[in-house]
């Protein structure tokens, strides 16, 4: 089998890893050595699905001893051809691509061949050839395999820029059900170790810079050690294969950002690649849900939102028709309007239609002139959305529209642009008036359709039964409770959601909202994060 055939199999097997970023570390070029990195990263191409290609994303091998239900490379999947790169082949391919400016570096993951240590040894060898034999200074992102020994993890971290351990599924029960070879502890232990190593490395480097360290020997160290994963670590989890709510997922990622200092938490909408009674057989990928989760994630990382402000236990799914920021604004109308000429950055960031870049431009421009509508439009603010929430030198921008939740909700509700050709292509315009009001509103997207809902319910029911059989009834209640509000319910129309809001939590309790102890989440100590 030649390299191209191997690449075909191993790139195809790796494509479900969503993380493809080359950001987080600035490394200047060095004379005689190939490569440099920029902290902003660089996308070199875009696939027909619009995702960026910045790194050569491949598996080292797709041979795997694990049997995770959702994974295309699972041991019991006999339809897939198995192959593996040699370390030299992989290094040559990376260099060849890099020199042609196809890629920014390498994203190396792998199936587990033999044991995790053996797999990591092979990965380390490939990265060693790149870094030491070829003097490669580009970006390397490596996946840490759960269960790898600490020494090998250290070697891997020294060679790569970013490490990641996949969380795979958002809860312990789901993990036990669908990925029996992985456990909460085996995923969190390497994550914690990487976090500690990065912190140690940073601290010792800072001390060295400040000349606080006194060397015992007179000889200077010949060569500086590489930094340990200078671009930090990330993780990813699958959305929609199991019944966890957005509330659960966002709280989990918030606590990961806090306790593990992750750079990113990636969400991957579940795609049925293998048939399994425990998995939803639906072809409708929850892309809109994934989109809303990312929006919420951005609010937490760049806009200074607390997770409790974005989502609460009573409404465990994000609104499908308005984005989380607009939703917050609609629920906190007393905070608005904000005066753009005097408001601090934090307040500007809360205005729908003003992003991080726009808020900074406002700060810059208003030092010298008073901003009105024309100026704001020039700065590239989405004035159409922002006008209802701002005053410009005292004059309110949203004149003519009732300053109430319902009126503004109608103005801000916007469908997610899913393109005109893909499966998210809007067949009818949502919110469009019809002549026949009695006609039931058709589900616009496949992911909100009734068949999809049924497929999810079937799978979640099977998961519940399997859990009950394995763990006894207690865990089953917890999962079963949250399953009562299946993700597809989030796609129902917003009016019913608002009625629910009005009825309050008693209604939520009747409907079996997740109030079990297993799902109650406080930020610092998420139950999934407590390594037992």
């Amino acid at each position: 089998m030649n390299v191209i055939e191997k690449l075909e199999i191993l790139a195809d097997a790796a494509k479900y890893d969503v993380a493809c970023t080359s950001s987080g570390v600035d490394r200047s070029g060095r004379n005689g050595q190939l490569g440099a990195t920029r902290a902003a990263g660089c996308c070199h191409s875009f696939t027909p699905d619009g995702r960026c290609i910045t790194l050569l994303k491949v598996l080292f091998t797709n041979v795997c001893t694990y049997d995770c239900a959702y994974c295309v490379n699972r041991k019991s999947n006999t339809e897939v051809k198995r192959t593996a790169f040699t370390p030299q082949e992989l290094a040559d391919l990376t260099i060849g691509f890099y020199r042609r400016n196809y890629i920014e570096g390498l994203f190396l993951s792998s199936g587990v061949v033999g044991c995790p240590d053996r797999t990591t040894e092979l990965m380390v060898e490939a990265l060693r050839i790149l870094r030491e034999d070829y003097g490669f200074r580009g970006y390397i992102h490596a996946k840490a395999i759960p269960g790898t020994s600490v020494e090998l993890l250290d070697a891997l971290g020294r060679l790569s820029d970013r490490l990641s351990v996949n969380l795979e599924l958002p809860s312990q029960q789901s993990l036990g059900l669908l990925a029996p070879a992985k456990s909460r502890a085996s995923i969190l232990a390497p994550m914690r170790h990487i976090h500690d190593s990065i912190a140690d490395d940073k601290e010792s480097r800072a001390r060295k810079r400040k000349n606080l360290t006194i060397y015992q020997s007179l000889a200077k160290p010949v060569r500086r050690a590489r930094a340990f994963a200078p671009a930090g670590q990330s993780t990813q989890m699958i959305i929609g294969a199991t019944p966890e709510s957005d509330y659960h997922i966002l709280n989990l990622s918030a606590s990961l950002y806090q306790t593990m200092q992750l750079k990113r938490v990636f969400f991957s909408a579940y795609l049925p690649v293998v048939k399994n009674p425990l998995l939803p057989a639906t072809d409708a990928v929850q892309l809109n849900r994934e989109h809303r989760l990312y929006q919420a994630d951005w609010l937490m990382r760049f806009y200074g939102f607390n997770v409790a402000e974005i989502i609460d236990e009573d409404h465990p799914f994000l609104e499908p028709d308005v984005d989380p920021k607009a939703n917050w604004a609609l629920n906190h109308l007393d905070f608005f309007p904000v005066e753009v000429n005097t408001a601090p950055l934090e307040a500007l960031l809360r205005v729908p239609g003003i992003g991080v870049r726009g808020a900074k431009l406002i700060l810059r421009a208003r030092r010298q002139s008073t901003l009105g509508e024309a100026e704001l439009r020039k700065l590239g603010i989405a004035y159409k959305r922002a006008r209802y929430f701002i005053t410009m030198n005292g004059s309110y921008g949203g004149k003519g529209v009732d300053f109430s939740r319902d009126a503004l909700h109608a103005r801000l509700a916007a469908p997610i642009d899913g393109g005109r050709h893909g499966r998210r292509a809007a067949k009818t315009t949502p919110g469009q008036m019809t002549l026949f009001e009695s006609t039931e509103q058709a589900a616009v997207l496949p992911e909100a359709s009734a068949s999809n809902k049924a497929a999810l319910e079937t799978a979640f029911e099977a998961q519940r039964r399997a859990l009950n059989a394995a763990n006894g009834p207690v865990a089953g209640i917890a999962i079963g409770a949250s399953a009562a509000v299946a993700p597809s319910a989030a796609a129902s129309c917003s009016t019913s959601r608002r009625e629910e809001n009005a009825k309050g939590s008693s209604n939520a309790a009747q409907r079996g909202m997740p109030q079990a102890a297993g799902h109650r989440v406080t930020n610092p100590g998420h139950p999934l994060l407590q390594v037992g």
Partner: protein
Amino acid sequence: MSVQHVSSQGAQRLGTQSQGAQSQGALSRDARSRDARSRGTQSLGAPPSPEVYDEVAYAYDGTLEGLLSAIFAAYANHEYPSDVAPARLLQPRLGQRVAYIDTNESHAKRVAAGIRRQCGSYSFEAVKRASLSDQPDAGTAAYRFVRYAMDEQKRRDCATCRKSASCPGARGKGPCPKRRAAAFSDISHPAVEPLFKITRAINNECEHMRQFIRFQHLGDGQAQDLWFARCNPKASVVPLIMPHFVERFNVQPFIIYDEVHHLAGVYDGGDWYLVNTGSAENLTLPLPDPTAEEQLYSEAWRTFYRCVSIDARYNPELRRHFMPKRFWKNLTEMQETPAALRMQG
């Protein structure tokens, strides 16, 4: 108003002491004071009333030095040209006199130093980027910005500053160093905003080039060894992106050829320089053949590109948004066959 009518082709060469310029002195002063009074209330972005600007357009040769010389000439002639544009892009308006400004190195240097001193190097970078733009109004935007910023900086005195005794601004050597950057910061001002937008467009185009340049390995790998890339940017950004590529590909001699602006950035393994091929008629590039490996790697890259896409998420609009179609002809992965990439000019 003594307006010299010229035919649209007749880009008339005028010296710095033209008859028209002298007779228009009074009008210019009048226009200037009116301009100063109306600042802040009247939008310069809207079509100006006919008296505000002289009916004269400055044509320059399209280089940065040419643009700076044109700005110099506007001050020297006490004129307020309504358009400043490269000669090849200038479309004279009805009744407009066109003055062709000769490029003068020493004038350009004086203007460059003046902008840096008064308005900071960031402003000068913006002017530099405007000179690389293909937009016909880029030169005008740069000129109006310089007029505005130089005037504005004079008002930024250091009267309240505690360090005024030791500050270079207090002794007439320019504004306070801390206030220099303020010239370009008022981006909602009608004189700044066009230049700000042009700068941003150029920076975006630079980023596109960093993303979508694709090198091919040519030669036999021994005596002949060359990495060649062809690109079609909207602005002449090769000089701006060369440092980026030289930094990361310093182990390989390469050429980035801009087929739109007929400009090649050449890195020979030691230093990089620009070669202008605009004067060569029907240029054919005598390039060596691709190496044996080139076919393999481009095929591997196309295979990879095909494999990483997920059909269930198909969204071609999003791809086109990030990777506009105009770049596709020079992208290896977007070709039907690897041989489809054009090798010869």
